[in-house]
């Protein structure tokens, strides 16, 4: 199977790993983002420090990412992914933006055109802020509880060209915008099926080959004793980014599958978890849900029915007051109001994995479901 993107990505990373600074500036995963937009543009960025941070949030905080039958994380970006210089939000296999009709200037007036705010484009994004006249502000205040806009969350992979079955009759609309790939499919280059598939494959391969940083078994204080930390550092080498929740969680699951003898073929493992698009098993993207379950969304949110039950496009209400109070960055409100509770899921086909750790260095740490990373 040809993997041109993967090869380029890997080569860049392998050849630049001697210099951390070069590593970050050449990483194609972030090549469309401005300086200062991501944690690793910080001159003090360190993979190890970042992995300590991420481990603290994911394993020592109080969110549950690793379940028996699902791997999951929220759509909210980590600290450091923000609008400094350029909007770089939407880096967790989940992009989001605001959609609304321009509000009228008077009672009984007509709504204007449908617009999106902060929606990623091939380059850059649609505007972040909405300039309101005083009359429009009064209108929004008088309709403060009316739903006049939507936050859109999409996990539709950028390389999935699946048609929208629902459009065979009448395309669903969001705030007057018909659903289509142009507006509702993710755009950032790393938010794709292929990227996720290769990340799984590379992290499994590392586990199978043993060719990754493992620390000293005899040193109990070695941070690499932590399954998550070990995988987090590996993530960077495998073409992911160590500060993302998604990449590190995917790599941790994958690495543990191989360390514990649950898989013996990286390509097969990747296909089980992230089926390559345009094959019989293709899918649109990772399903969105809530922390309660894969199909329970927060109040005020609902699925946009694409006709394939993919659960990859979710809309959440924006009231008149929301628009008024957050007109300078409605996408920011989408993040603070909803993104922490819109959860990306990767279903785990548990029946496909039978683990036999053998003589692996980490055999003694393997449980029946070693992909539930707890330390």
């Amino acid at each position, binding site marked *: 199977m040809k993997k041109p993107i993967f090869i380029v990505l890997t080569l860049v990373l392998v050849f630049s790993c001697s210099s951390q600074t070069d590593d970050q500036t050449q990483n194609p995963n972030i090549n469309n983002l401005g300086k*200062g937009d991501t944690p690793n543009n910080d001159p003090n960025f360190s993979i190890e420090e970042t992995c300590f*941070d991420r481990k*603290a*949030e994911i394993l*020592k*905080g*109080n*969110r*549950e990412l690793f379940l028996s039958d699902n791997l999951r994380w929220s759509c*909210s*970006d*980590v*600290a*450091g992914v*923000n609008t*400094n*210089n350029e909007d770089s939000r939407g880096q967790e296999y989940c992009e989001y933006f605001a959609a609304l009709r321009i509000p009228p200037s008077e009672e009984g007036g007509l709504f204007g055109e449908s617009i999106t705010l902060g929606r990623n484009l091939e380059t850059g994004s649609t505007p972040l802020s909405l300039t309101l006249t*005083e*009359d429009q*502000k*009064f209108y929004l*205040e008088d309709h*403060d*509880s009316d739903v006049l806009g939507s936050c859109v969350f999409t996990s539709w992979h950028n390389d999935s060209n699946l048609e929208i079955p629902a459009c065979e009759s009448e395309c669903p609309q969001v705030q007057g915008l018909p659903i289509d790939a142009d507006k509702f499919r993710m755009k950032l280059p790393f938010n794709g099926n292929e990227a996720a598939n290769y990340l799984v494959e590379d992290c499994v391969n590392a586990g199978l080959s043993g060719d990754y940083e493992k620390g000293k078994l005899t040193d109990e204080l070695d941070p690499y004793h932590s399954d998550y930390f070990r995988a987090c550092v590996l993530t960077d080498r495998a073409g992911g980014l160590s500060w993302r929740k998604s990449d590190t969680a995917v790599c941790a699951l994958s690495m543990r599958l191989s360390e514990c003898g649950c898989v013996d073929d990286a390509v097969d493992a990747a296909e089980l978890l992230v089926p390559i698009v345009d094959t019989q098993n293709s899918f649109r993207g990772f399903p969105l849900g*809530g*922390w*309660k*379950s894969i199909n329970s969304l*927060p*109040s*005020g949110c609902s699925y946009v029915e694409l006709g394939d039950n993919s659960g990859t496009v979710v809309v959440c*209400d924006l009231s008149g*007051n929301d628009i*008024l*109070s*957050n*007109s*300078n*960055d409605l996408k*920011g409100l989408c*993040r*603070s*109001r909803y993104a*922490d*509770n819109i*959860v990306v899921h990767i279903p785990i086909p548990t029946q496909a994995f039978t683990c036999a750790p053998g003589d692996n260095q980490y055999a003694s740490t393997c449980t029946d479901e070693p992909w539930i990373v707890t330390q």
Partner: protein
Amino acid sequence: MRFNLRLTYLLLLSAVWMGCSEASVVPESDTTCTVGKCDGNQGWLEVNLSGRNDAIATFLKTESGVDEDGVFETNLSTLQGQLATIQGCNPADSRNFVISDQLLVAAGEEAFPRLVSTVCAKDAEKRWQVFLSPPEMNEDRDIDVQTIEMFAWDEDRQGFNFYKTTAEGGETVSMEVEPDECVRCHLGGDGLSVEHMPMLPVMNELTQPWEHWNAAPGFDSQQHEIPEDVKDKPNYTALTRQPWLASASELESTIRKAHETVANQRVRLRRKSGASVSETMSLLRPIFCDEQVNYVSESGESGQLLMNAVVDVSMREIFSKLGVIGEAGKKWRDLNARIRLSKVSSTEQRISMMPVRGESNVIYELSLIAAARGLEPALAAQVRLLDWKTPVFSSLRCSLWTQTDERLRTDRLDLDLESLRNYDLIPILMEEILSIDGVSLLLQKENEKDRFYILNDGSQFKALIAAISEDSVELAVCDEMGKCACDDLPFCIGSVDDVAYVIENHVESILASPTVRDDLRKERNSRVCTAKACYSNHPFIEGSEHCGSICPLDDAFAGRSTNN
């Protein structure tokens, strides 16, 4: 034996109403009733519920079977289901949230759980409209499901109405409307005027990790311990089985929605014609004083604490509106910014329950700034920048408001108020508040729209006033990269971006300190004592036993002359 638990400390049921303004007065009856005992010819329903249009009033009028003394039969689950139906929701969409700590038990005793119940969880517009909570323990050390505090949103009055049932034996309860005992704990700081202050639901531990609350599913609960003997009790078991039991994360979003709705209503008061100084001053009070307080804790063993422990969260939004650009303040302005402390090995070492500025205040402030003819963001920024290193409980900021409020009660403004609306008074009163002995703190008035006085230490306020009058306030010191600071000065003048860097430097110096955890704990302990003394609705806070009971917010700040 019935345990007489402290109702005033209920965490959520803060439906308080002070009938002080035309916009906020609970409909009054011409007969006063006490705990369901009415005299005269009017029936209990007419006397107590006339003019009320909330779900609980509707239930009482139509389905409760309440008698002339306000007595009927119910329990929490039954009432919850009936209220859900009245709201047009499926009773199965009701939710119960559980907090368990030692707030309501004697020192040394085991924690006891309290519930907060809602209806219409799947309806975004209704899920925040009805709250119920059984605050007491029955003689079997189970939840007393007949004694229930509750409040509901009144669509006509656009505010919450408050009620309480008291167990009278068996399923029989007596209903009380707007019980006085709840008023104090559901208002703002004890030293504050409460004029025109709307009632608010309160969830003290509003943000993740929701210390003491059940956080599952989806999250690990933190310091949430249910005693073994309670877990099997029939009422507790019935109320916390699936699908009723829900995560505090869901309650957080519900409470935030209620806060937003109340804030919107409050902001509307600025549009009222026939301007009122007292009404407009009440609109400005949350900009200066802390009407509500929230509490943040380190998340698990992560060592991560929300940034609002050291920087007021509203600054992020205000400076975003003011147009901070580029790298300035990137650490503290990030939505998910956290203070990262060292990992701890025991729960005792965590920074827990640190008081921070109330989210309801922040939500309100941002609504007032966003509104047409509301508060200019630059004015809000200037207020925060006075004593900006004190994000909560700033006696300086609050005294500026309280002293002006007192002064304007006797010194009337020479204005034709009838011809004005409240929003016309906002800039006038801001100038009144921010003028000290004839010295204005408003650089914006001097065509310096992008510049602010940055006061690093509130105790230097007098010196700042003197320096302003002498025109000797120094500018922030900037390096060749344009990064500015005034750390070595008690105060300075800076631009929007300067301010962002000044705060960034402060955050970095906190994080770089080898004693950061001890420093924060000391600050936390100080704030905890203020919260305990000044906020009747404070939660259970470990380590507050030594605190005094006199509210320091009563102390006037010494920066203003007495004849001002």
